[in-house]
């Protein structure tokens, strides 16, 4: 997924404010979920039936800020699932500018439904395990 750096993303040092990479990566994760399988709508409906009101929440992140991004940069946000467990997923995310690696993050997201951690419905888990 590509992200263009706008003025609003930068800080007083004229580089992308560190917390904004988390917003870019969130979009990367959302996009990743959207792209999972062609029958994603059906998959989400399945999820709704099995676990109504479900959502993924970020449990932990380990982030390395390697190089800064600046105004007008076009960044690639790459999202790769590392491990799919019963109730959580570990993802590897990278923000790149061309061949330069700017930010790497390992993100653990938990599946919640009705405000509590729940097992990921099988259809969703299979879809995530599939493209690895």
């Amino acid at each position: 997924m590509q992200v263009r750096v706008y003025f609003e993303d930068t800080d007083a040092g004229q580089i992308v404010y560190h917390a904004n990479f988390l917003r870019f990566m969130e979009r990367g994760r959302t996009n990743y979920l959207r792209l999972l399988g062609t029958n994603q709508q059906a998959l989400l409906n399945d999820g709704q039936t099995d676990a109504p009101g479900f959502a993924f929440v970020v449990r932990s992140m380990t982030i390395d800020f390697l190089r800064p991004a600046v105004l007008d940069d076009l960044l690639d946000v790459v999202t790769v699932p590392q491990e799919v467990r019963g109730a959580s997923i570990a993802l590897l995310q990278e923000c790149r500018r061309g061949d330069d690696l700017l930010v790497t993050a390992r993100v653990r997201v938990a599946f919640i439904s009705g405000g509590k951690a729940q097992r990921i419905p099988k259809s969703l888990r299979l879809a995530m395990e599939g493209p690895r």
Partner: protein
Amino acid sequence: MVFQRPNEIKALDFCCDIVKPEFSGIVYHANYLRFMERGRTNHLRLMGAEQHALFAETEVETPGFAFVVRSMQIDFLRPARMDDVLDVVTWPVAVKGASITLAQEVRRGEDVLVKAQVRVAFISEGKAQPIPKALRVLLKADVG
């Protein structure tokens, strides 16, 4: 991840209605980074208020100095909600030649909501530089 006893004096109180919570009524995860940045700034400001001469000297030695975030490990343990009053506690755990590792916690009363370990590097004129000795000694004094 090891967390040491925080320095309670450097707690920073604020109300999270300053920052718009997301639709679900809980604080958006990236916003904790903004809270923690304020905690770090406040930590430095409190140090600077106590040690004004030293910071002025550092500015002469290494003009335009700043600390930039190099890496973070964050655990989001519980959500914060609209109108919560949070404490951000910041304390240094390690001071190296060109970087500092800080521990930070975001708390609501007794509850720890988010804990993080943050490595910040010292830069001057756009480049990583060794932290001037006087400042390093001062930062080290707080490592408990």
